[in-house]
């Protein structure tokens, strides 16, 4: 009950920004920044540091955990200017792992699997027209993103066609994005009208 009221008032604080920037909005904004950061910190503590460091160390006497712990502590050295060199080791480790994971991941999902699908035989009849268009669109958009040739001649023409395909795709994204934002607003208004003011029927 009280919490619905607080939530509703904070909602209105944020909406007040639509009229103009004001102290209520600034209060909400600053509260949000602090609360969000605090929450993330607490969650990391509960769901990473406790189960992945503290418990293995104290319960299982798993000394291997000292390695990530050391890497983590080295990260904190960044707080002091002179610690930058120490923190670099942790960053190097972190970045190395993520790079290594990325290479086969992208190669498979966004390159090979897509090429295989693009090479599928076209269905018979009218559907082949769509397949042909997909094929042309794919090649011409690739041509647009070809940087080592100037956009002239055949390549230039292909790149132009590619731009049209891109624009239709952007238009589709655009329409869908508007849709998404409107949905978010609808949900907030549902909250205000139903949970707070009880003007709409049940949850």
């Amino acid at each position, binding site marked *: 009950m009280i919490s619905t009221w607080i939530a509703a008032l904070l909602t209105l604080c944020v909406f007040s920004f639509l009229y103009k*920037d004001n102290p209520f909005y*600034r209060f909400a*904004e600053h509260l*949000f*920044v602090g609360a*969000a*950061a605090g929450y*993330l910190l607490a969650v990391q503590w509960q769901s990473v540091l406790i189960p992945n460091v503290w418990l293995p160390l104290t319960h299982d006497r798993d000394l291997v955990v000292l390695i990530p712990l050391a890497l983590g502590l080295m*990260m904190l050295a*960044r707080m002091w200017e002179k610690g*930058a060199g120490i*923190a670099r080791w942790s*960053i190097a480790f*972190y*970045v190395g792992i*993520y790079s290594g*994971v*990325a*290479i*086969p991941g992208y*190669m*498979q999902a966004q*390159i*090979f*699997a897509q*090429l*295989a*699908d*693009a*090479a*599928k*035989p*076209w269905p018979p009849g009218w559907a082949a027209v769509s397949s042909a268009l997909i*094929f042309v669109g*794919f*090649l011409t958009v*690739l041509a647009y*993103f*070809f*940087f*080592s*040739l*100037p*956009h002239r001649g055949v390549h230039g023409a292909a790149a132009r066609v590619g731009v049209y395909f*891109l624009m239709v*795709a*952007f*238009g589709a*994204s*655009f329409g869908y*994005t508007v849709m*998404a934002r409107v949905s978010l607003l609808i949900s907030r208004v549902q909250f205000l009208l139903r949970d707070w003011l009880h003007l709409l029927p049940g949850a």
Partner: protein
Amino acid sequence: MPVEGSTRGDRVDPTLAAVLRSGLVTQALDTRWFDPSRLNILIGVLLFTAFLIVNIFRARANADIYVRPIAGLKALDEAIGRATEMGRSVLYVPGLSDMSEVGTFAAITILYRLAQRVAEMGCDIDVPCYDPVVMTVLDGAVREAYSKVGKPDAFRPGCVHYVSAQQMAYVAAVNGFMLRELPAANIYMGSFYAESLRLAETGATTGAIQIAGTDKVTQLPFFVCACDYTLLGEELFAASAYLGREPVQLATIIAQDWAKAAAAAAVVTALALSALGNPALMKWLGAA
């Protein structure tokens, strides 16, 4: 639409059934040292590595490699110049992603170049960060940039700072900064999501020059609408190479072009073969 008790198997699309079954294969402990179905990926990685290395050598031998100019990069200098004249700062938003996203790396490289210009011109830069790891990296890059142009003392500690790892909290704080501090130029480079429109729209109302670049295509329509210059998709990566004009960076762009050409050739060949009744290449591409 019958839901409760609707049966399975009899009216299920056969391709769907195949996919569903393949996900349920049970296996004992694997003792193989190589997964042959992934050979295609291995070849792809090796081939691409070769493209990269060959082009690096080519670029070192002959620095005169062509990369088509990217509109909007020239505007960066203009923006810094304007900020210096007006005595206002430059706001650099490095995207809302972590070190696993390529856009972030482009953001780092571009900031490193930009910070050198900023240091030379003597104006102030502000870099609010979303990800704490990215923050430490960017902080290092900006310090390095100031030292490189011989002005290590001009570096203002805290100019690269963490804001929040929650998107809207981040946006709220950065928007607030734009409205109150009125930076002369807002530069958005990296991976952006829903915040793009709010950042760019707010920035535009302050009258700042706005330059954006992102590899996140869904956000491009909004940047295009609200910014003075926008780098489309991969142009962001090309920009980070172009700015440096370093052989290695340019070589990367060329290697990627080669890979695109190879991909196009593979698709055309595989399609022609499968049209002629030989789907082997198509199947091989999708084997992993």
